[in-house]
């Protein structure tokens, strides 16, 4: 099973236009199993678009995306099946407002026949205990704080037992006092070996958890390297300019 493919995710000359606006201009990137890749860059540089292309929430204009060896941009391929193995966490949580906290977690695994209702319930209990939301399991999401919603959104994805997690600015919509609790959950997750792609503006966090950091600028990868390389010795003037703005 393992190593039939070179990288868990690989993009080849990935381009995305919105009308006449060229948002991704040919991105060649890869993510390896167990790797934690963070994406930083100025607003509008295409970070979210890149991440959303990885699970085909945006349809690329051209180029290819290989997930576990399969080109998921092919016509006629079942994207749904591949999405089951790619968890995604959104800036605005997007927890299901019509379902209880516990149902948020069990809906997909049961519906997609990954688990029986009983198995899913047991797993939900475990996941809720892990994020300290056990006493809220029958509440509706409107009763949760932003930080609680985002932690719920994270474990909702985990219930599908994904091979990779995609995070799109998971803490940007949170009140400052709730950022820490969410970052803590993500830290524990990556420590346990979860392959992750994280778009973030939290530079300290990026430095701490990343194996590799890429700096996106205007639809291109302007620079990439280890956290030390990128944060301590940026080579590209655009990277230097960006970092000087966000770090001080």
């Amino acid at each position: 099973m393992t190593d039939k493919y070179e990288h868990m995710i690989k993009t080849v000359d990935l381009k995305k236009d919105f009308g006449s606006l060229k948002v991704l201009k040919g991105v060649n990137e890869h993510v390896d199993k167990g790797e934690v890749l963070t994406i930083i860059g100025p607003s509008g540089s295409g970070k979210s678009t890149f991440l959303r292309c990885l699970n085909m929430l945006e349809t690329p204009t051209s180029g290819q995306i290989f997930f576990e060896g399969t080109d998921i941009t092919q016509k006629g391929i079942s994207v749904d099946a591949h999405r089951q193995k790619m968890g995604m966490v959104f800036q605005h949580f997007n927890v299901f407002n019509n379902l209880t906290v516990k149902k948020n977690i069990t809906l997909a695994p049961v519906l997609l026949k990954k688990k029986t209702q009983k198995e899913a319930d047991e797993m939900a209990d475990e996941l809720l205990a892990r994020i300290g939301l056990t006493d809220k399991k029958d509440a509706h999401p409107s009763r949760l704080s932003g930080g609680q919603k985002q932690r719920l959104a994270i474990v909702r994805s985990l219930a599908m037992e994904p091979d990779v997690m995609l995070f799109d600015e998971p803490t940007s919509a949170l009140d400052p006092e709730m950022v820490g609790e969410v970052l803590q959950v993500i830290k524990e997750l990556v420590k346990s070996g979860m392959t992750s792609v994280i778009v973030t503006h939290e530079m300290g966090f990026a430095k701490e958890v990343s194996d590799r950091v890429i700096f996106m600028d205007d639809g291109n990868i302007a620079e990439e390297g280890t956290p030390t390389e990128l944060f301590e010795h940026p080579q590209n003037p655009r990277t230097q300019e960006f970092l000087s703005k966000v770090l001080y």
Partner: protein
Amino acid sequence: MLQNIIKVLSKYGYLFADGLWITIELSLITVLCSSVLGSLLAIARRSRLLPVRFLCTAYVEVVRGTPLLLQLYFFYFMLPNLVPALKLSEFTCVVIALVFNSVAYVAEIVRAGIGAVDRGQMEAARSLGLSSKQAMIHVVLPQAVKNILPALCNEFVAIIKETSLASTFFIGDIMTTYKTINGFTFLIIEPLLIAGIIYFCVTFVLSKAIAALERKMKASD
């Protein structure tokens, strides 16, 4: 005048009761049929096939761009000629015309109700691997219903008033009752006042009930 009103009521009150019943029957049948068909139309408008989308949109635009009275005439006179085999009653023709009209408005209500659900809900469901149909059924529609239901009730109230146009064909609704009594007694103001008060009472009570329902649904979030 008050005397006349009392006289009309005591002599022809039963006619108003019959009229009220027919108005409500007509409105209920219309709103029920158009709720089902309008929802289907709203879903069809989201089809991947361009011709389907085009036809549905054209239908909505045509209905909304022509007067209901004209549509009533059209169905009343055309339908029996077009399909004589069915031997459609006048009442049925009127119902079909009202449904034809109301479906377009219901489709818009349903569309707006779905559109008001945050796009992120669908995206989150899809990102977990749900098909768009599963996401629709389990996540989006249950939330859309909260927007749609009160608007549908308001459509019911609007239809109650619109059915008065069908009295052109003497189908026995409240407005027909007015015309009948006017024919018997040559009174105008008095039976008109009675009809107006009946319409107002029904729609007022319904509107208040809908507002209460809406508040309750908001609270249950």
